[in-house]
């Protein structure tokens, strides 16, 4: 399973449409490199990358924390 397939399996969720992160059917053509400024999707990508590279969960959590702690 590629990281893109894994990401799409998450993006398929109704929650992302309900919360206006994505429009209906948009996940199908979603690419890993598709630019976005949605923090939730970035968090997801970090978690997926960590998983696929067999990174320690603690490091992944740290990376996500650092990303979300940015004050801007």
């Amino acid at each position, binding site marked *: 399973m590629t990281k893109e397939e894994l990401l799409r399996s998450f993006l398929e969720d109704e929650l992302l449409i309900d919360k206006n992160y994505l429009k209906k059917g948009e996940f199908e053509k979603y690419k890993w490199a598709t630019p976005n400024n949605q923090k939730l999707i970035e968090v*997801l990508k970090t978690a997926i990358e960590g998983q696929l590279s067999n990174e320690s969960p603690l490091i992944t*959590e740290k990376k996500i924390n650092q990303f979300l702690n940015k004050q801007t």
Partner: protein
Amino acid sequence: MILESIEISNFMCYAGYNKFDFTEGINVIIGDNGYGKSKLFDAFYWVMYNECFDTNKKKFQKSSLLKKLIISDKAINEIDEGLISASVILTFKNLDKGNVYILERKYSVKKLDGNLIEDIDSEEVVWQKDLHYLTAKEVIDSEQISRIKKTILPDNIKPYMWFQGEQVESIIDFNKTDTLTQAINVLSNITRYDHITEISENLKESTTKEFNKKQRDLSGDKEKSSSLELQRNETLIRLKELQKQELQIQDTKATAEEKSEQLLNKISDAQKIKEVEAKRRSIEKNLQETQEEFTEEQKLLHKKLFTNKWVLKGTENLFDKYGSLYNNYEQTKLKQELTKQARIESENQIMTELHARLPVDVPEPIHLENMLSNERCLVCDREAQIGSDAYLKIKELLDRSKTKVKTIESEDSNIHDFGADLRKLYQNGLGLSHIIKNIDDDIASTFRRLRKLDKKRKTLTEELKSIESAINSLIVDTALNVNQANDLLNQYSAQNELAKRAITQEYSTANDILKRKQELQQLDIELGKLVSGEIPAYLIDKLKVVEEFNTLAHSTRRRVFDSLVKILETEANQHYQLMTQGNMSARGIIKLKELNNGKNYMPELIDDKGNVLMQLNTGNIILIKLATIMAIISARQGSRDTDLYTLITDAPMSVFGEDYTIGFCKTVSNVYRQSIIMSKEFYKNMELRKQLLSNPEIKLGKVYLITPSIPENSRANRNQLSTNIQALN
């Protein structure tokens, strides 16, 4: 990866050197029970895992425990002194990578002075060879050996690829929470979703803590905030405990419901057995009572000869005869009495007349006595010698004073009168004559009753036989005996009770959870009110993102898992339909039903309208399980590492009927690139064997027939036992 061959030397019943070559498709080793099929399976397994399946203990045992049992008895027996080794060599060919792996396992014992010295453990040797080169290189590094073995058969695939028929039940044990999760893991790496969910959980927890700390720091009343925070933590701990408790209750409920449902399949059988058994007991009791009554009646039959006067049967004429004789007797007696009476009366009359002429005691007796002694009559003064008429007349006058008036009674005093006895006899006879008249009816009625009892006894015996036969049939059909049926009903009732209790507990725990959540909400509001400064926007945003991430991770994991279950279900159905094609009575669609705890799944067979088909028998369940095992493998097809592994299974078809054998072989040859099946089904059934060898829908590999070297009745002596191998194609 294709398993090219197995070479077996002196391993268990395979004495000497033996070799099986295999190709792609389904390879079948045919042999009857006890002919060496399981030992062949052991040989494969032993090389890879240094263990053999102990059928008695139903588990695998290490070589270090089995020791000399690994070596052929014949091989041990044939040598007087020296080293005896058992070895098995597996040759795997990886055509895609151009590799050959040769794995050998060896175990030795030494015979010395009649004693057997056993090696502590077996030895393993692995060679790797490039297809283009002739020589192989021994692999020394244990980690590399382990990698090679995992390439041949990964650990997570192993249970579904190499198994004994009797293991099928436990490989897919739907009672175990993680069985389907494990299967899903083989199908797709669901653990990736699990790990991401775990990360989201940790992030949510740490961010919530961070947010709460910020709230506390910005509080206008730090003391109150601390106190509220403390309460909040306590409530949170309690909430977690309750949630854990809720899961346990749900588990208990799901397990109880699942068990009830499993039992439900057999409950009607058990109920039927119980009812029939109750009927049998009632008939048995009735029969016993009837038998006792019959025996008693038979005993009474002899007594009744006297108690019911049956002995008098046929004596009616005797009584009449006696009556007539008695009548005559009475009349004769009466006549005699009358005659006697007349005589006495006449005599008395004479005496009365005599008294009138000469009164009694005249002359006085003293004078008379004097006359007799003097032998002279003083009245007429004449001689009266003793014995003379005169003497006798004087004596008569003397005796006359003693003479009284005669009566008939005084007359009869010396005669024994049987009249009363004879009358009593007559009267007795008269009484009995009424009974005698009824004796025939009494006898007839008694015999009627006896016949009735005998008939009832025979009917009940027949009924008992028939009901016992019905019970035996039920026991055979349902594989339940009377005790098991009772246990099953008890278990069913206990599981139902447990499920009911769990539902009540679940309801109460859910209420508690709701209450705690409301408390938490209230505490959060109160804590929020105490905040005098402004919580940084990034932190509010961060909390929102991690909460959404957490929800998303849970929901995605759930959705992916469900879709994999669906794939598994679809694949399992395809295999099930193909396997059951040969049996017209088999029907239904497999449905993996999710249980209430959201973790366990139970297989159900449903009809085309969605109705659950009850009463799955063991054969059905094994077929469903085999279909699920195959589904796990077939659903992987197309992914990188599928169809690289060989299915090796011993007697997988033994539980279900021969109707399914060809369907099973077709399915296996479709699902697995290579399979090696040990089977007894083709041993005796030549028609089935012919189908196997000629059916174009079966991708057939090699077929072998194995037979023991010595007849079955001499097999107790294993010292001469070896196994003959005959290639059938």
